[in-house]
């Protein structure tokens, strides 16, 4: 029971990160590796600021802004320097490693005994982990609402159009360079904010905490899609969060069964590959047990 609670709490926070990945991967149709650098960037900025006495909420907001800057650099490399998206992301991510070390001045910054976002709920004496859950629900609702509202605006629609069909979007007079950069900024801002929140929840920022974030993010997006099917935009965002929670359940289950720790990464890769292949497998084998209702 406790494990389900902590997995949910962790899933909510990681789900925010997955929302950032969703914007680049699904909306812009651009696999963006910047996230592996902007995630620890957000953690580093947030830890530094909290240590110098800044309020944890403001620190997370600052992480968002600086993460967006990282996204801007990738966007600039893609649109102005005409680089392939994957390469541009990898370059920014690599550069951010040194920048993160500069910001933290070391490899690990401790936040013990400092004020954290979840401390804002401490006066209610919630059971363990529930402060993270309530804060996580509050933040995800806020972020999803903001995203839904944004993508309803003309600018947001232009971003969606760019990802759907760039040529068509350009012929409609949309500056696709600008919308791409905007999407990348939004995505990396959210990823960095998630880095800030997770650093606060863990009690430290670590230079290597970004490793594997892309896989976790993609897994959350895809698990959500595979399990819950094709839904309206707002519901798809909710499914990303649910996907992140389910991913945590799977990891928890793998750990409980007592599989070899060294195999954990392989197992996550296999789960992800399976989820990615499931739609086409289902078509080939004509297995409609998952989507029966939607098919009819």
């Amino acid at each position, binding site marked *: *029971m406790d494990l389900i609670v902590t997995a949910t709490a962790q899933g909510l926070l990681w789900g925010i990160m997955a929302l950032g990945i969703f914007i680049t991967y699904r909306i812009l149709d651009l696999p963006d590796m910047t996230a592996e650098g902007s995630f620890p960037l957000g953690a580093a900025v947030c830890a530094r600021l909290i240590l110098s006495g800044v309020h944890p909420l403001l620190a997370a907001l600052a992480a968002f802004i600086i993460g967006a800057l990282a996204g801007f650099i990738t966007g600039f490399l893609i649109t102005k320097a005409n680089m392939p998206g994957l390469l541009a992301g990898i370059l920014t991510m690599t550069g951010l490693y040194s920048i993160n070390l500069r910001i933290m001045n070391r490899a690990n910054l401790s*936040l013990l005994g400092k004020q954290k976002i979840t401390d804002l709920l401490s006066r209610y004496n919630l059971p363990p982990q529930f402060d993270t859950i309530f804060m996580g629900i509050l933040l995800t609702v806020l972020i999803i609402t903001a995203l839904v509202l944004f993508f309803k605006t003309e600018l947001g629609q232009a971003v969606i159009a760019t990802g759907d069909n760039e040529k068509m979007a350009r012929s409609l007079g949309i500056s696709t360079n600008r919308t791409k950069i905007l999407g990348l900024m939004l995505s990396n801002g959210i990823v960095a904010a998630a880095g800030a929140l997770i650093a606060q929840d863990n009690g430290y920022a670590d230079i290597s905490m970004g490793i594997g974030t892309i896989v976790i993010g993609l897994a959350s997006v895809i698990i959500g899609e595979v399990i819950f099917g094709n839904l309206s935009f707002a519901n798809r965002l909710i499914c990303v969060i649910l996907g992140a929670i389910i991913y945590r359940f799977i990891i928890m289950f793998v750990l409980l069964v007592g599989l070899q720790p060294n195999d954990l990464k392989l197992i996550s890769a296999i789960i992800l590959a399976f989820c990615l292949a499931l739609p086409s497998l289902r078509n080939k084998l004509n297995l409609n047990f998952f989507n029966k209702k939607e098919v009819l």
Partner: protein
Amino acid sequence: MKKMIGFISVLALILTFAFFTNQTKTNTATKKDLPIVGVLQLTSHPALDLIYEGIIDALNEEGFIDGETMTLDFQNAQGDQSNLNSMSARFVSRNTAVMVGIATPAAQALANSSQEIPIILGAVSNPEEAGLVANNEKPGGNITGVSDLTPIKEQFELIKELLPEAKKIGILYSSSEDNSIVQAKQAAEIATAMGYETTTLTVSSTNDVSQVSSSLASQVDAIWVPTDNTVASAMNTLIAATDANHIPVFPAVDTMVEEGGLATIGLNQYELGKLTGQMTAAVLKGESDPATTPVQYLEQGEIILNEEKAKELGISIPQTLLDQMANQ
């Protein structure tokens, strides 16, 4: 859509249930059965596993046996930092009598989860710098433990003894490990105080080791390496580069000497674990309070020397050192 709402309601139901049962559990948790000892380890790694073995052996010697006089709850986060948190929460919700953290992130996760339950640190180089205790001498809170700070000063004295003519010392470590940065900073201070000229270079992954170490080897008379996982993994690459320049390597860890380093004065990980276990037992018996128990260090280091390597590099070993080794 239906599935989504279904999943959310099931999850909400479970969480509501957990919310209320947890509430009552924390209120009525006065059942005094066997004391629970929670041990949280960062990952499976030979050095960390040895520490864990030492902890258990020391606890057994002090009369704490799993299932008879205590309940052992051992959790291994398998290197995934997001797991540390869940496992610490588990300890707190089970009302453990004492928690033991092996390696810095594990200790930080524990410290983050409770300000009341005593926490014993197994192998954290400098608890004060990691923000775990207010002061290494007087921790002041619920945390104390054992430092695995390598005897850097003794290691540099060993360099002086083996290479009396050396003037320039290179320091090589990876920038992604906090532990290494702390050690390298200290090593540079100690070396400068001893009159050495130091050059420090860092690597960010094992891929950099080859190039960085050949560049470093061409500039110095000897290279010192801290307890560093990245360099340890690429030890063969480092040795290939230093052998080409006929430069000896003085690593901080004994296993790295076996892999081609020249010599070190190292800490025995098992003994570190035993010291940690003894401190844990003392807290369990109520004999000590973390707030007033200073962070402890393992005093005696063992000299480990690679005689084959010394012959290869044409370094003669002083008789005094050989005698010292025979006595340990």
